């Protein structure tokens, strides 16, 4: 299921082959920063990926593949020796060396937004001009996955130290920086001197345009003002599909939406109640209402594309839910508060609210503004909530922050505090043998879904609308990918 499905296979009629050499991509929000270590969001990452290289990168199947790295080895459980390709040039023509690598990775530890990415690293040594040795604090299986994060991009040390503050950003990627009009657009130009001839940029220029409103994005695509809409509003999927000139791409993402419960507070401190919730919620209805069906039902705490996934067997069964509730003594129903933030989560909450009403639970929705929401969730003031989580390909990147007991007060909003869960997480993290790791995770899934700290809802599809004339549009679970390869 990892091949992008191009739905409604259509080619622009051969008569009018489009010869455009510039690509405009509509995205819903502006990038936060051009410094790849100054942000931690997908919009910015998409741009930094074109401007910078990392030692490794993910392919569309979510596998780690080398980017700058030429060879790597693991002398011990905690040591990684990586040699980068020779002759990689930054946009200003200077060559990339191991010093830049050491500098970049060390810098990432000091940058607030990304200091967590390589927090497992103990030290970095320059072995020779093109080789570095990285020591981790402990055996850390998903280490290579951390290196694909934008925060681990390799920056030109000289440039960064010049204090330009990324005003005229210089990287090594397939595209060079031209302009960033805050709130409006980012313009990139093809890097003719890119080191990787196989992955050269295809279009002369790429423009990322910010169009916050969904309907406006679709219309811009329809009028041809933009070539690709990276987050197509799901209600408009059929419109794009039916339009001769447009093509629709969808692919399940790694973003899992879940109904979270505060495991420390009644009534959700009771496992049976939590299980009842898993039966009471009609995931299909949620998907229909929230994303117009563009997703797949979620059956565990992670997206199916993620390593070691194993689904649970909860199904929509209000009768069962009632039964369970009755068993714990909530025959006459109960009242809970349900928190949400943002438009989509509001819709999800509304469906949940309606579902719960059927089993005799009155859920009062409280809406918060995003910053407040997260803050209050961290403080554990909630009873239940709706949230999404987009994860790295490595399961640990989800499980530790979300279910590890020490993350309570952080992202562990369900406040899961279970010795066994902790043990699973720790042992899987240190397990370097892939099969064993997968087995541990399989078992973990079973265990945690029985505990049911949350009720998984659905995994949203990435939905991209594009001009039908565009070729090589590929989606990865993270969304629009390999932008440098897209062309008319």
């Amino acid at each position, binding site marked *: 299921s990892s091949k992008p499905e191009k739905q409604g296979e259509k080619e622009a009629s051969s008569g009018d082959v489009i010869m455009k050499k510039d690509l405009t991509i509509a995205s819903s929000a*502006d990038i*936060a*920063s051009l*410094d790849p270590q*100054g*942000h*931690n969001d997908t919009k910015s990452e998409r741009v930094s990926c074109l401007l910078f290289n990392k030692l490794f990168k993910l392919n569309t199947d979510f596998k780690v593949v080398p980017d700058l790295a030429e060879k790597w080895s693991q002398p011990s459980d905690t040591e990684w020796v990586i040699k980068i390709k020779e002759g990689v040039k930054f946009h200003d023509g200077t060559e990339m060396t191991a010093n830049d690598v050491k500098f970049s990775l060390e810098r990432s530890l000091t940058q*607030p*937004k*990304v*200091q*967590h*990415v390589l*927090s497992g690293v103990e030290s970095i040594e320059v072995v020779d001009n093109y080789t570095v040795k990285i020591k981790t604090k402990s055996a850390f299986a998903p280490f290579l996955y951390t290196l694909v994060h934008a925060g681990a991009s390799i920056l030109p040390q000289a440039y960064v130290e010049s204090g330009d503050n990324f005003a005229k950003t210089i990287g090594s990627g397939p595209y060079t920086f031209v302009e960033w*009009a*805050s*709130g*409006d*657009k980012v313009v990139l130009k093809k890097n003719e001197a890119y080191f990787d001839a196989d992955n050269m940029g295809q279009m002369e220029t790429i423009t990322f*345009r*910010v*169009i*916050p*409103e969904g*309907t*406006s994005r679709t*219309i*811009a695509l*329809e*009028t041809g*003002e933009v070539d690709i809409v990276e987050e197509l509003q799901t209600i408009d999927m059929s419109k794009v599909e039916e339009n001769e000139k447009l093509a629709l791409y969808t692919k399940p993402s790694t973003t899992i939406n879940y109904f979270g419960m505060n495991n420390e507070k009644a009534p959700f401190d009771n496992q049976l109640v939590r299980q009842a919730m898993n039966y009471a919620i009609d995931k299909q209805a949620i998907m229909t209402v929230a994303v117009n069906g563009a997703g797949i039902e979620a059956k565990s705490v992670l997206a199916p594309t993620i390593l070691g996934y194993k689904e649970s067997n909860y199904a929509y069964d209000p009768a069962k839910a009632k039964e369970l509730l009755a068993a714990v003594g909530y025959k006459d129903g109960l009242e809970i508060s349900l928190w949400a933030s943002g438009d989509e989560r509001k819709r999800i909450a509304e469906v949940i609210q309606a579902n719960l009403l059927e089993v005799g639970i009155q859920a009062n929705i409280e809406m918060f*503004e*995003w*910053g*407040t929401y*997260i*803050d*209050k969730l*961290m403080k554990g003031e909630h009873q239940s909530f709706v949230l999404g989580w987009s994860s790295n390909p490595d399961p640990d990147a989800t499980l530790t*922050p979300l279910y590890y007991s020490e993350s309570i*007060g*952080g*992202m562990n909003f369900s406040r899961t505090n279970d010795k066994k869960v902790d043990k699973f997480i720790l042992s899987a993290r240190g397990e370097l043998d892939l099969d064993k790791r997968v087995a541990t995770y399989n078992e973990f899934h079973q265990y945690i879904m029985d505990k049911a700290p949350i009720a998984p809802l659905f995994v949203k599809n990435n939905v991209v609308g594009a001009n039908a004339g565009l070729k090589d549009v590929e989606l990865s679970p993270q969304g629009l990918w390999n932008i440098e390869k897209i062309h008319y």
Partner: protein
Amino acid sequence: MLKYILRRLLMLIPVMMGVTFLVYFIISLTPGDAASIILGDGATEEAVIELREKMGFNDPIILQYTNYIKGLLSGDMGISYDTGKNVSTEIIARFPNTFKLTVIAIFLSVVISIPIGVISATRQYSIFDNIGMILALVGISMPTFWIGLMLIILFSLNFSFFPSGGMDGWKSLILPAFTLAIASTAGITRTTRSSMLEVIRQDYINTAKAKGVSRKVVIRKHALKNALIPAITVIGLEFGVLLGGAVLTETVFAWPGIGRLMVQSIQTKDTPMVLGCVIVFALSFSIVNLIIDILYAYIDPRIKANYS
């Protein structure tokens, strides 16, 4: 006159102090922790605590505020908590866009509403008058984003007259400016109409007619100038409303203005950025109103006499 302007400009200082203080204070009331925002999702508790100490977030509000003001007075608006960008650079990049949009919108609504108001007044209770007033009312009763989306569907999608959003060329200005203008049109039209009605009953209008001045000239030369005075006040106030209302228009039309920046910054509790935005809002609002007051003096010699 110059003295008056200077005095007014000086008056801005306490107002700005008040504005910044109030906003600083309200934001500090909102839940959410700046340190964890700066650090982002993956931050550890220790890092948060450390940063909080370092940035002085544990200090009393007043102290934090005075520190901010000290920075401000030396021209430093601070660094965005959220993006690490320099607030003043960011605002300088964004504000002109909003300003341009607002000014064009005001211009449009003046161009639309003054003639309607005048004609309505001169033909009080006629069909034109009634329809004009009802349209004006319908104008204010439609939410901005709704009008915006309708205009996009109509003029970008169906007729491809104008781009659906973004900011290149004058064409992209038309729809957002028009959307923004519609709401203020009602107020200005109604004020123009009522002050015009007031003015055409004045004796000097009769004097002018008795001189043999033709009807059109009476309206244009004698009545309009007098009727403009209250209308201008409303225009000044509307300017503030528009500045504030630009948020929605900017969102719908992907206009990279300061309204969107502000809302976004509030949501991330990016205090320096919010304050930066508010300061330019408040400043431009106050300055526009100062300009309006100066305009009065030009239109109305009686007021001019008071200023000097």
